[in-house]
């Protein structure tokens, strides 16, 4: 099959499934068969993506752009939509479909306590989510990307609010939806700005040149990045991400690994020509990434909820990616995006497995689970090590690359010291909080709720075991990935020692050691306790509160002013207008006799006037 | 001479006046025939004193009618009251104008229908249009008499007329669809060449014929569909207030209407003047035509004197529940058969 056909299969199979499930109610309400159909669609998408990947790793790399005209305006075409299959989109398609497939298979067992209707609904949204994300990945221009971007937002809203009967879930879904929408204004405005300057939605060199010539490049890049901040949960718009834990755990895995938050980073990757040309915006982006990385890691350190640790960890890792991309390293950001997708999906699914076993999110309820759940424990530890960036795990390679890139950039531009240092510290913090989770959950004394925990069935263990493979080895594909991305100055080495890498690894080991010392051996308990106020302070609540303060003080005051203006000026004008209308109406109502004949008479007189006018006009005019 | 014989204007006049005479005579004789027939059926004699077999009774009755006083009710709408009796006679005669009374095989083996006042391309439409107008005189008489019985009878008559017009038109569409022409002479010619419609379209044709026949009875207000007359409830229907010649014209028109309805059914479904193997000369045509329509005519009286009258609601139910959908289905089936035959 041709690459184009494969790409269309990968995108549209989930859409077909979702449409079937949406339209055919009885099918959706069957539950398991509907889920099976959805999983089949995901597998089809995965298969097509794998074949695409195989083709593009072959002798002739796939590079296809197929666009169809859309929105024809007065003979011209306002926009096109289509498919772009190249080294950027194909790896992402593979990641998306792989993670989505694993998540769907996992959900098949994880969600089995739901009613058939809810089960079907869940898989309907899953399929739709897969379609929208694939459509975003293959988009050949920002307009199509924007459309799918919004659809991705919608799908995550639907899935976060899956337990909509729970008040907090509804709130969380709304929060995620509104905050990302708020950020999406940036994308929309950026789109309009770009189109008004260049009359194209693309990211080709000509467009970038036109943007630069118009002096708009930094503005547009900044606007796009604002949307990325919302979508990829960058500080200070990250506040929706922890709340999004209200959704089912597999949904968190999907959101955090491959879809929702990945979309933001992917936008930077995809539109990288625009970003790389925005020389003033890039350092800011990088700094924001670094700040996000360290702030989220700090918060993660003190979390007690196993999922929230991972949520803040995602935030922090996204900060890494953004920092790398801001430093101009496509390879660093994108490489970390792919590896992170695998181990983060793994971690979420594994913690979903744990939560399913102990019926609690709190780490205090767990402990000593390794004996009960050996498989889950093993893969969880693998994932954690990868996340912490220990040597020879996948995270090591990508994170090392990021740190080295930042270090190099800092030589030229001192502002990059900020993200570099932040990321170095974060490397240690990451290891610390993951080690903390491992020790609290899998070792030590048995928690009161974990005594009945047991390993789950095939559908839940298979995906996490399978995901452990790329979590271990995906880093070894760095060379191929660089080749795919078109990054040629990157030389991959399985074993390499650089000062930065050694420092980072040392920090990671130190983090694990500290975790073991503090939580495993109980040393320095007072130190930890004394840190609690600091943790409380940097936890998300103050930031939420500051947003609320901003909202109340600025927005509310503005709203009140506007309200006064509306009530007295605009309403007053309208009331005056209305009163005059009523007055006139009172006078004119006598014209209305209420008799049909008179109305017909009026109509006919109107026709008469028109006909007479036409005759006069015709004869005098001609 | 031959040129003159195919000139439509000449034929119209040369043939129109005899046709009117013949139909009027048939209308008159029908009264005598019916009374004799009814007498036989009821085991009595019927008119038998005036003339041979009482045949001059018609004349005697006619003279009596003309002598009667012409009464117009005081509150009647005189214009309509006087117009009402004339219309049906006129309409019936007009609708007889397109019926071909004979036909023959010409030298080239084509069927030629002949002997009609006007060979209209839209003959069937003409006939149906006039049938549709037949409700006017009923309504006029019912309204104009200013009598509650006539008004009720008029309402019933109009309701029945417009209702049964639908199956009538639909059943008449069956020959149109089958033969592909609106001309009555064309329909007869088609039947002469392809076989009569009653059996040429096996079950559909026969059912359509029955539907057409029954709907014609209803249009002509014959038993079992003579609700507007309903002597027992409405003391004779819309003609209660009419005396003498005017009432006679109503009756006359009714008999003629029956005869024309029979002739139409023959034309549309029973091959008109065609008789298999026996149509080698045009002069034979009228014989077959009169024989066939005479048989239907007798059948109508047979039904009249041996059947009962429907109740008004039963009548409408029969029409809307059975006849209308049935006739629609018949038209569709005919179309299907025509289509299938084009495929073969």
């Amino acid at each position, binding site marked *: 099959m041709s690459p184009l056909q494969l790409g269309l299969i990968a995108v549209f199979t989930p859409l077909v499934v979702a449409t079937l499930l949406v339209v055919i109610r009885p099918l959706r309400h069957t539950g398991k068969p509907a889920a099976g159909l959805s999983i089949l669609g995901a597998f089809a998408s995965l298969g097509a993506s794998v074949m695409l990947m195989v083709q593009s790793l072959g002798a002739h790399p796939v590079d296809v752009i197929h666009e169809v005209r859309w929105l024809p305006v007065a003979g011209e075409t306002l926009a096109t939509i289509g498919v772009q299959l190249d080294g950027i989109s194909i790896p992402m398609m593979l990641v998306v479909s792989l993670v989505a497939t694993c998540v769907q298979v996992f959900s098949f067992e994880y969600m089995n306590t739901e009613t058939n209707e809810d089960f079907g609904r869940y898989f309907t949204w899953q399929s739709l989510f897969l379609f929208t994300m694939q459509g975003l990945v293959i988009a050949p221009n920002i307009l199509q990307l924007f459309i799918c971007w919004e659809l991705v937002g919608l799908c995550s809203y639907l899935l976060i609010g899956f337990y909509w009967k729970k008040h907090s879930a509804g709130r969380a879904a709304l929060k995620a939806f509104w905050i990302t929408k708020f950020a999406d204004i940036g994308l929309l405005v950026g789109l309009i700005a770009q189109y008004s300057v260049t009359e194209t939605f693309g990211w080709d060199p000509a467009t970038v040149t036109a943007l630069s010539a118009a002096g708009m490049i930094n503005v547009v890049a900044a606007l796009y990045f604002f949307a990325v901040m919302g979508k990829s949960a960058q500080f200070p718009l990250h506040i929706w991400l922890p709340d999004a834990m209200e959704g089912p755990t597999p949904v968190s895995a999907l959101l955090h690994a491959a879809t929702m938050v990945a979309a933001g980073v992917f936008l930077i990757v995809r539109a990288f020509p625009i970003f790389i040309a925005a020389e003033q915006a890039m350092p800011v982006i990088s700094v924001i990434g670094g700040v996000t990385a360290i702030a989220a890691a700090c918060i993660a350190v003190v979390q007690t909820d196993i999922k929230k640790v991972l949520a803040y960890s995602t935030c922090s890792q996204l900060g890494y990616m953004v920092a790398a991309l801001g430093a101009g390293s496509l390879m660093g950001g994108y490489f970390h995006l792919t590896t992170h997708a695998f181990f983060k999906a793994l971690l979420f699914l594994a913690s979903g497995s744990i939560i399913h076993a102990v019926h609690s999110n709190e780490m205090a309820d767990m402990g000593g689970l390794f004996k009960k759940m050996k498989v889950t424990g093993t893969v969880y530890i693998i994932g954690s090590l990868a996340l912490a960036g220990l040597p020879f795990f996948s995270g090591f390679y990508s994170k090392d690359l990021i740190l080295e890139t930042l270090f190099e950039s800092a030589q030229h531009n001192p502002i990059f010291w900020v993200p570099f240092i932040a990321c170095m510290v974060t490397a240690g913090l990451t290891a610390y909080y993951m080690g903390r989770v491992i020790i609290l959950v899998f070792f030590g004394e048995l928690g009161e709720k974990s005594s009945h925990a047991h390993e789950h069935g095939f559908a839940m263990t298979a995906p996490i075991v399978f995901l452990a493979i790329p979590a271990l080895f995906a880093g070894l594909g760095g060379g191929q990935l660089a080749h795919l991305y078109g990054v040629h100055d990157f030389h991959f080495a399985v074993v390499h020692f650089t000062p930065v890498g050694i420092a980072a690894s040392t920090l990671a080991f130190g983090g694990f050691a500290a975790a073991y010392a503090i939580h495993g051996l109980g040393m320095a308990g007072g130190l930890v306790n004394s840190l609690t106020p600091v943790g409380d302070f940097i936890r998300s609540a103050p930031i939420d509160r500051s947003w609320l303060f901003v909202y109340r003080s600025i927005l509310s005051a503005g709203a009140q002013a506007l309200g006064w203006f509306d009530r007295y000026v605009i309403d007053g004008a309208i009331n005056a207008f209305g009163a005059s209308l009523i007055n006139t109406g009172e006078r004119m109502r006598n014209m209305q006799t209420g008799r049909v004949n008179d109305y017909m*008479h009026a109509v006919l007189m109107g026709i008469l006037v028109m*006909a007479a006018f036409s005759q006069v006009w015709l004869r005098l005019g001609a | 001479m031959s040129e003159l014989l195919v000139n439509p204007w000449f034929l119209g006049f040369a043939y129109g006046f005899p046709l009117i005479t013949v139909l009027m005579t048939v209308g008159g004789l029908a009264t005598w025939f019916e009374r004799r027939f009814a007498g036989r059926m009821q085991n009595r004699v019927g008119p038998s004193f005036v003339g041979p077999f009482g045949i001059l009774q018609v004349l005697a009755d006619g003279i009596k009618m003309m002598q009667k006083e012409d009464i117009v009710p005081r509150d009647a709408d005189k214009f309509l009251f006087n117009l009402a009796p004339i219309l049906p006679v006129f309409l019936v005669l007009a609708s007889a104008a397109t019926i071909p009374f004979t036909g023959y095989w010409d030298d080239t083996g084509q069927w030629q229908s002949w002997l009609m006042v006007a060979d209209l391309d*839209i003959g069937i439409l003409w006939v149906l249009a006039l049938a549709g107008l037949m409700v006017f005189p009923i*309504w006029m008489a019912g309204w104009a008499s*200013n009598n509650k019985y006539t008004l009720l009878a008029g309402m019933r008559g109009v309701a029945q007329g417009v209702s049964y017009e639908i199956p009538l038109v639909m059943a008449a569409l069956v020959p149109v669809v089958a033969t592909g022409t*609106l001309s009555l002479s064309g329909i007869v010619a088609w039947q002469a060449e392809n076989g009569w419609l009653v059996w040429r379209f096996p079950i559909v044709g026969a059912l359509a014929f029955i539907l057409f026949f029954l709907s014609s009875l209803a249009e002509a207000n014959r038993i079992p569909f003579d609700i507007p007359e309903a002597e027992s409830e409405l003391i004779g229907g819309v003609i209660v207030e009419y005396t003498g010649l005017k009432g006679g014209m109503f009756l006359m028109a009714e008999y003629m209407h029956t005869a024309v309805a029979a002739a139409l059914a023959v034309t549309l479904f029973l091959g008109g003047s065609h008789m298999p193997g026996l149509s080698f000369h045009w002069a034979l045509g009228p014989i077959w035509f009169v024989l066939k329509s005479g048989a239907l005519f007798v059948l109508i009286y047979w039904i009249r004197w041996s059947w009962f009258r429907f109740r008004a609601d039963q009548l409408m139910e029969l029409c809307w529940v059975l006849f209308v959908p049935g006739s629609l289905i018949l038209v569709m089936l005919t179309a299907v058969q025509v289509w299938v035959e084009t495929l073969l």
Partner: protein
Amino acid sequence: MITPMLAGILFLSWLLIFCAIKVATTKNLVHSVFWLAGVLLLMAAVFVILGAPFLAGIQVVLYTGGVITLMLFGIMLTQRKPDTQVAMDAENRGPALATAVGMLLVLLTAIWGTPELATMTPSPQMVGASEVGKIFLSTQLLAFEVLSLLLLAAMIGTIVLVRKGDH
């Protein structure tokens, strides 16, 4: 030049106009209906002269047979005998006449002020049922189907309107 066609149409026109005036002015509503029947039949005759016999037949079947019968029904259902004489509105007659005459003047200006119309001649062929039928089922199929839908809607709407028990 007076052709037979023109002569026939002129003759029918006088009758048409006479009947039409009767329709609009007769006090007795029932008579008005029958004058309308006259108009419709005369119109059918004009159609025949113009070479549209099929249309004339349809005109008689649908208009005279259908519409007039409906009107009669309407009168029977809604009029008491004395009411049929209360047909005109005295105070409205003057303005109505003014509007009608004004419209007539405008139309006549348009008709007689357009010289192109004078030179047009009727195309000679008669148009039978089959041509019209073919048009229904080929180029105007959509309009035909839409019309059937409209008739269905009118039927259902009428039934809903006059159904008893809703009021």
